[in-house]
């Protein structure tokens, strides 16, 4: 467990080569090795959702994956989906609706929300709440987040609220 392993992956469109200890989890790899600190660590046991990132297109808890498991994979973080403009409308809706307070859950929340909107273009409120039920927010009480996602879904579907 003490010998570093060479991994090669694509993070936010950039090729990354690294030597990592097998015990290093993906969240720590992103935060400490790549200094992508937008992926947050809230519980380190897969419950809070703050560390949600995309791995080969699917959202995962980066605290529950080892960095070595991402060899040859594609990882996208909040920094990547922000810079690409992929979630600009969702971020705008979060701003307008004040769907974040301290902001610590927000990167994970946005990753989870975008995942839902890709799967289901017009989710109802119950469906939105269900999809976010693995992302903990202590500040907002969730309603503003649900509103922002609902607004974004309608706008994307061409049905402005």
């Amino acid at each position, binding site marked *: 467990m003490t010998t570093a392993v060479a991994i090669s992956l694509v993070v936010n469109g950039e090729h990354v080569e690294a030597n990592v200890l097998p*015990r290093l989890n993906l969240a720590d790899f992103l*935060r400490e090795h790549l*200094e*992508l*600190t*937008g*992926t*947050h*660590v*809230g*519980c*380190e*046991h897969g*419950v*809070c959702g*703050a560390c949600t990132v995309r791995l080969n297109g699917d959202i995962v808890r980066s605290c529950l994956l080892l960095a070595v498991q991402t060899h040859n994979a594609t990882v996208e*973080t*909040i*920094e990547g989906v*922000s*810079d690409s403009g992929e979630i600009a409308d969702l*971020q705008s809706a*979060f*701003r*307008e*609706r*004040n769907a*974040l*307070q*301290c*902001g*610590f*859950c*927000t*990167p994970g929340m*946005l990753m989870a929300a975008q995942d839902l909107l890709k799967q289901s273009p017009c989710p109802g*409120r119950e469906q*939105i*709440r*269900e999809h*976010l*039920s*693995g*992302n*903990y*927010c*202590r*500040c*907002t*009480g*969730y*309603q*503003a*987040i*649900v509103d922002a996602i609902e607004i974004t879904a309608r706008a994307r579907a061409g049905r402005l609220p």
Partner: protein
Amino acid sequence: MTSAQEKSETLSALDRPNSYIGKTVPRPNLDRLMQGRGLYVSDMELPRMAHVVFLRSPHAHAKINGIDTSVAKQMPGVIAVVSGSELSTVITPWVGVLSHLKGLKSAPQSAIAVDRVCWQGEAVAAVVASSRAQAEDAAELVLVDYEELDAVTDMRTALDPTTALIHASLGDNLAFERNHDAGAVDQAFAESDEVVEAEFVFGRHTGVTLEPRAVVADWNAAEARLTIYQGTQAPHMVQNIAALHLGLKESQVRVVCKDVGGSFGIKVHIYADEMATYALSKLLRRPVKFVADRVESFNTDIHARDHRCKGKIGVKRDGTITAFEIDDLTGIGPYSMYPRTSAIEANQVVNLVGGPYVTRNYRARARVVFQNKNVMCQYRAVGHPIACSVTEGLVDLAAMKIGMDPIEIRRRNLIADDAYPCASPSGLRFEQLSHHAALAKLVKMMDYDALRAEQAALRAKNIHRGIGIASFIEVTNPSAAFYGVGGAKISSQDGVAVRLDAQGSVICQTSITEQGQGSESLTAQIVGSVLGVSMDRVRVILGDTDNTPYGGGTWASRGAGIGGEAALQATKVLRKNILDVAAAVLQSTPGELDIVNNGVVNAIDGTPRIDLSELARIVYFRPDTLPPGIQAEFMATRHFVPREYPFAFTNGVQASWLEVDTDTGFVKLLKHWVVEDCGTIINPQLVDEQIRGGVVQGLGAALFEKCVYDERGQLTNANMADYLVPMSGEMPDIDVGHVVSPTLETELGAKGAGEAGTAGAAAAVTNAVNDALRPLGTIITEIPLTPQVILTALGRI
């Protein structure tokens, strides 16, 4: 005086054309947080920074016979392994008492335990290494020889003579007791038609901030200065305490608070491990970072509530409430927390019970006892949920007893809206509350009668839905009466410095802090409104003791009311200073001029005269062109602290609509309503979101959250899989309405809103559950209302 002068003086600053006050505007600088480009303390790295991991006691109470660090010190990357006695050469212990809480006692507490540990989770050694992983590896190899002692865990027996003493020097396990007796309570009960009693039980729970507590302490030996980067609500308090116990002057300590991942009162205290981190940096002469992991958070972040409160209410057949009586018992862990103490919550319970109601007869006893459990202290809505649940629970029980509707009994007993100013039986002074207006609005918002009809129809189908109502009062805008009078060096005053820069933009430094409430936004809204500039020109600086005025910070629902008023007053001075110079430049008089949309205009018709950017250019770069004797002062500072009222009380009422599954014991929240009165509303959206977030924290306490200790003082659910918090799937939509009664103590008129939601949510839910179960003849007065509690009460298990 010209007519223009008259106009500008009679027109309130808040009524100006480009006012942001009262408007929903998005908070500035959210993109940083939404793009993952914030800077939380847990993100910080400094050159030569080391990481500390604390080895923590597995026992609730034990003697430390010895610590062997020799193997750990040989581990890769280890810089130091430090025991409590070694660290005590750098930092002094403290005692968490305040003089205004008469009789409060506690024992000296050290940054790291010396000789004895008093709760499971107390630090016994610090392991400092180049990385956190290396420190954790080495911590496993520190050998501690413990001799387990009897643990005091049940607060009901903590005062028994046969129970072990936690601190022999204190003589008993009683930290604090307060007794209060007002009016003629015995006579009132004797004259009542009905007297109802109940015992209310509140689980211990905690704040669960999503970002755990985090601190980077950086002692620069060459500067003889300590910089503390910490997610804190009160930077100047941290500065004072760190300096005091490290033997430094305050000027040698700078506290910087960047983005904070949730606080809710968890981060308004100073914890032993944070003190240890400051001391380790000084000892090791390098930056040291401590970030609690989630298990440590559950074991060491302050817990709250944990009360058992016996309550009694007298009522006449016409609904008149004759008296309240309570006997409250709470357990606070082995030490009173520092520097705010752990007696405040019980003290608040005594203050607040019965607060919304007319009756003058009130007797209370509160006792605060030590336990070998984690420390307990102030968390969002300190004492309010206890007082509100007891009061509103008793009111509902009284109503049930005499067969009166819960709304009606409140209508008959809430203090009349025109009865102010007045005082509560516990001596609280109310400037202006609006219980009846709030209740009327709530009844309308929720369509109470229709809901009752729906409830009755569903009951026929064996569906058990309930409506719960809870009126409440909330302490906001605390003056020095809260902490300062007891000797705590915690400022109740806040300050704001505001200046016009050379391009006509505004920089505002405020001593209140931001943890997501919107402090930055409300400050910019006030400054922009009063000055007449657009909000995007206002930059707000917070959270840095080197770069803001001295002040209290953001806690106890004080940021908007106190910091906001300081911002208003400072900006008024700046505005005057700008108009004085503008008048000289324009050969006019200040009274003939106004500032609108970033420029000086004629007050009378709005004709543009000179842009602020141009005026600033002249002042900063061509002052030689100003008339003789003119010295521009484009910076102004003002402070504010409430002096007339110790607290600006707010009020409100909440309602819960829910369904109880009597087979599974699950509660489904269907809807929640709040009407509250926080005075002047600066940003309606931010107020509503404070209310909603606060409600959901109260709902967590009502249904899910409890730190479960076993009889040996072991916390058995210290992780997020076993300690349940509200998640989106279980939470209802929450409708928020307002009544506006501005405080006249300030020009702004704002009171606090941050804790109102938490104050009354659990009471509304408990009352709704009891309303739902009424046909089954079951009353439950314990939270959290878990399926186990409900099924037990129903006799199903």
